[in-house]
């Protein structure tokens, strides 16, 4: 187990390291001088030069890369070029929105997927199965930002149950904060849930055809008991795989959906930073997003080992 854990952890670090290089290289090619953008087009060349030096942008790329990474390792993200405040200050509030939003939509999508997927599998080829799968096919096709608009129209404008956008801040109370995350989470979860529901259904159906399910039935276990004790755990393996792969898309979805609901999360932070040529903020935020994806996949790997004892054996 510890070898398995260590191996996965090393992969995690290597991926993050690779991602940081890619991000830095990409931002290096980004045209537009941050100093020029900050000072405006009328700035004198001298002023630009001074600011460039002040921001440390005159140093060679390699040096800047290592000072960035070194800073991160010491918990220091540097200062925003545009706002002259520590990046962490800009990002802290955004993380408090994006992370709960991602977790909430993940939970919603898993609930949605398990309920629909299991129900459809249990009613295999019946009318309810066919129509549920038709709906899930539609769910996959719907752009999440459009669904977000429709949800606003229905729940916020027509029914006035939930706020149409904005975020009051967690100081206003947890419930108020969650209330304004429900619609965005629902918009994100529907698409993810539709994908996962299809996987759940086909995976459950596949496992039901396994020999060991027949063995379980031959022992005298009822259909339902077999589903819970023998089928579900095996069927979850591909579901979790796809869940891990989909997390990246979910996170990307938050970038767009946050925009629809005017939530000051990581998405709006990164878009604003791109417009300001605030490269250091972009670098850090994108690395954070990549880090979340990598971390999720690390957790998925660990979950595998818990669910499927065969994996541990292969790795050791």
């Amino acid at each position: 187990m510890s070898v398995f854990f260590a191996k996965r952890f090393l992969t995690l670090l290597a991926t993050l390291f690779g991602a940081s290089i890619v991000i830095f290289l990409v931002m290096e090619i980004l045209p537009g001088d941050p100093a020029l953008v900050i000072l405006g087009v009328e700035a004198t060349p001298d002023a630009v030069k001074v600011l460039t030096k002040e921001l440390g942008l005159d140093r060679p790329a390699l040096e800047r890369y290592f000072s960035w990474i070194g800073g991160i390792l010491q918990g220091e993200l540097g200062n925003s070029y545009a706002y002259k405040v520590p990046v962490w200050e800009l990002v802290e509030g955004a993380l408090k929105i994006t992370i709960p939003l991602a977790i909430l939509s993940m939970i919603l999508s898993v609930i949605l997927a398990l309920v629909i997927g299991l129900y459809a599998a249990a009613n295999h080829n019946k009318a309810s199965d066919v129509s549920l799968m038709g709906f899930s096919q539609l769910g996959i096709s719907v752009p999440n930002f459009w669904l977000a608009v429709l949800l606003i129209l229905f729940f916020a404008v027509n029914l006035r149950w939930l706020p149409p956008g904005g975020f009051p801040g967690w100081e206003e109370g947890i419930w108020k904060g969650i209330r304004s995350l429900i619609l965005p989470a629902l918009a994100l979860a529907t698409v993810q849930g539709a994908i996962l529901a299809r996987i759940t259904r086909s995976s459950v159906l596949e496992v039901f055809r396994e020999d060991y399910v027949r063995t379980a039935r031959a022992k005298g276990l009822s259909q339902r008991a077999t589903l819970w004790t023998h089928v579900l755990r095996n069927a979850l393996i591909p579901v979790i795989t796809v869940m891990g792969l989909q997390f990246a898309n979910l996170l990307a979805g938050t970038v767009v959906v946050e925009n629809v609901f005017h939530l000051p999360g990581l998405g709006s932070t990164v878009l604003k930073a791109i417009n300001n040529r605030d490269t250091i903020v972009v670098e850090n935020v994108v690395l954070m997003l990549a880090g979340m994806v990598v971390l999720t996949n690390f957790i998925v790997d660990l979950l595998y080992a818990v669910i499927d004892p065969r994996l541990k054996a292969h790795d050791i």
Partner: protein
Amino acid sequence: MTLLDVRNLNITLQTAMGEARAVRDLNITLKKGETLGIVGESGCGKSMTALALMGLLPENATTSGELLLSGEDLLEKSEKEMCTIRGNRMAMIFQEPMTSLNPVHTVGRQIMEPLRLHRGLSKKEAFEEAKRLLDRVGIPNPSERIRNHPHQLSGGQRQRVMIALALSCSPDILIADEPTTALDVTIQDQILELIQTLVDEEGMSLVLISHDLGVIAENTQKVMVMYGGTAVETGSTDRIFDELTHPYTQGLFAAMPKIGMGRNRRLTTIPGTVPDLINLPKGCTFTDRCPLASEKCGGAVPARSQMNESHTVMCHHLDKAIKARGGELYQ
């Protein structure tokens, strides 16, 4: 006392290509402690018969006839009632030990399941009993093995676990569907011997399904030869091997490697393939492959002829078949 009495069992499968008649007009009687072998090529309906006995036929199957276990018709039972019979009064061992155990649970947990379900044992009692069962089926070091997952055991050991599972509630009938086909030759005999010993000790009845006449001959008292979904020859094992009658049984026997057979003698085969269960031939299903076939064979299903009190054969050309017993049908 008759323990199992199958009367006119018919199984039909709804497939995309049409209705497949997997089993037709099958009759089986089995007394307590008796052992029955069912032999035939794949697709002859032997596994379907076993699954029908357990009430585990696929959803697209329909059955008719009677399946009497101690006088109770299993086909009339509700699913809930069947759950109290499966694994308790009737247990089954499958062909593939590699895939018949759940990979994510320990073998102990899987053996404990029926013990807790049918015998109402507590978790602790079930654990001790599972250990005893593992020991009984010849697994060394059971207190350690009980915590293993299936992938940590060899194929032979897994089949022993399957036997322990089947044995757990001392069933009246043990159904073994090709229990050794997937195993190494050296292990096959050990497993069959184990089954034999346990059946003797427990006084269970055994239904042993195999495509291998040799396995059947050594391990059963009665034999039923199936072809195209029906029994073409039935009788006591001793008698059938002395007096092979049906041309198909003769063919199976000729296709079996024999001790003392010269190195250069080629194994004989029965030409052709098993019949299409969706478009069954009108008459005798073996007509296309039978060396004795005549026009009569394709026209009508042969009657069941009683050779003596325990031996029946379905063939239009009994006389010729009896004459051919020397083995000249398949050269």
